[in-house]
């Protein structure tokens, strides 16, 4: 996780927090996402940045499985930016 990159990217993100997983391959980005989501308040939005294209399949599946909301993704060059909203009622 590159904190400097996360801070830079945060300026252009609609999310409450950013998680940079570039260079990591699934399932590690999903594991990190789950860890970070545990610290967020219900309703908060996390943006996950990844360069593993299979995350476009795994992240929606993880969201359906856990009850969090997958809000969509967009591609910027080699990277994917995915938005996930934490379900309400889980601190």
């Amino acid at each position, binding site marked *: 996780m590159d904190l400097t990159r996360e801070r830079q990217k945060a300026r252009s993100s609609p999310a409450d927090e950013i998680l940079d997983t570039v260079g990591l391959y699934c399932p*590690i980005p999903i*594991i990190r996402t789950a860890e970070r989501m545990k610290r967020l308040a219900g309703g908060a939005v996390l943006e996950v940045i990844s360069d593993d294209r299979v995350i476009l*399949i*795994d992240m929606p599946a993880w969201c*359906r*499985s*856990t009850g969090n909301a997958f809000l969509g993704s967009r591609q910027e060059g080699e990277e994917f930016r995915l938005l996930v909203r934490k379900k309400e009622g889980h601190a």
Partner: protein
Amino acid sequence: MMATPPERSARVRAVGLLSGGLDSTLAARVLLEQGIEVLGLNYSTGFCMNDHRRALGRSEDDPRRLRNEGLRAGSDLGIPIEILDAGEAYLKMVLNPKHGYGKRANPCIDCRIFMIHGAADYMREHGAQFVFTGEVLNQRPMSQHMRSLRLVEKECGIPGYLLRPLSAQHLPPTVPEQRGWVDRDRLLAICGRSRKEQIALSRTWRIEDYPQPSGGCCFLADESFARRFHDKKEHSDVENIRREELILLKVGRHFRLAPALKIIVARDESENNFLSRFVDSRWRFEVPDTGSPITLVEGEPDLEMRRLIAAITARYSDRRSEPLVEVSGRRAEHEERLVVSPLADQALEAYRI
């Protein structure tokens, strides 16, 4: 501490190992049919072939075939899945399995015990009452015959609280069955290698999107990986083998040149890119300005060995048919050029792991 009994009005909660294969999916479904709340655990061991294909990043690979099947199954079943990183403790187990290896480098019994131990911890942390798996009696030679199922149960730390829903009627009743948390009559009596019953059930429950059973998703059960793995153990201080060294066993062609010297020759561009991440302070060889593998060296080669490594690298380059090839050998800031003849295939075979 053993499992907590469910509150009088609360649903019974179970933790299951969910690989996403048909058996674990059906095991979860059998319990869901009884109104039991199911939490799924999926382990990331570092030896999953799909995960490795993802790390190689070959664009021709269909992303759907590389998905995490545990997540897919959790999504289809509507149950939460947590992926656990097996980490260094798993690595230690793989290098020193108490119950030994199967035919390859597969420590299946210890692996089950490891995962069920983790599931038992998760059960206690999440107020669940028992653990279940998709194991089927007599389906696999090493880990799923009666003796090993009992051994795993005995050593996993939760005797009586480990349920195998697919074969439960062949096994002694567990505590969840005895206490009526689970209806034993609605558990199954599947046994053996035939998958007819599982396939029939999958049709009944419209479970259609699952990976084909091949047993080929774990590097530890792969023949060529196992050769490299046992070679690594034979030529290393086992206690000091690092995770990175095992990761490198997954890629390329491997040659042992001396007891303390081996090389890895990439097979394509994606493996070149993969090996490039592990160069660090190692020697690396390649033929400049042509299609060439990266050759990564583990050990300290003298000049004679560096010439041999250069000759092997040249053999796998696009200039393999030329009599003399210039090869670059680099280590950190140091570079040398060696002019060698590509090694003949017959000579090469003596070194192949």
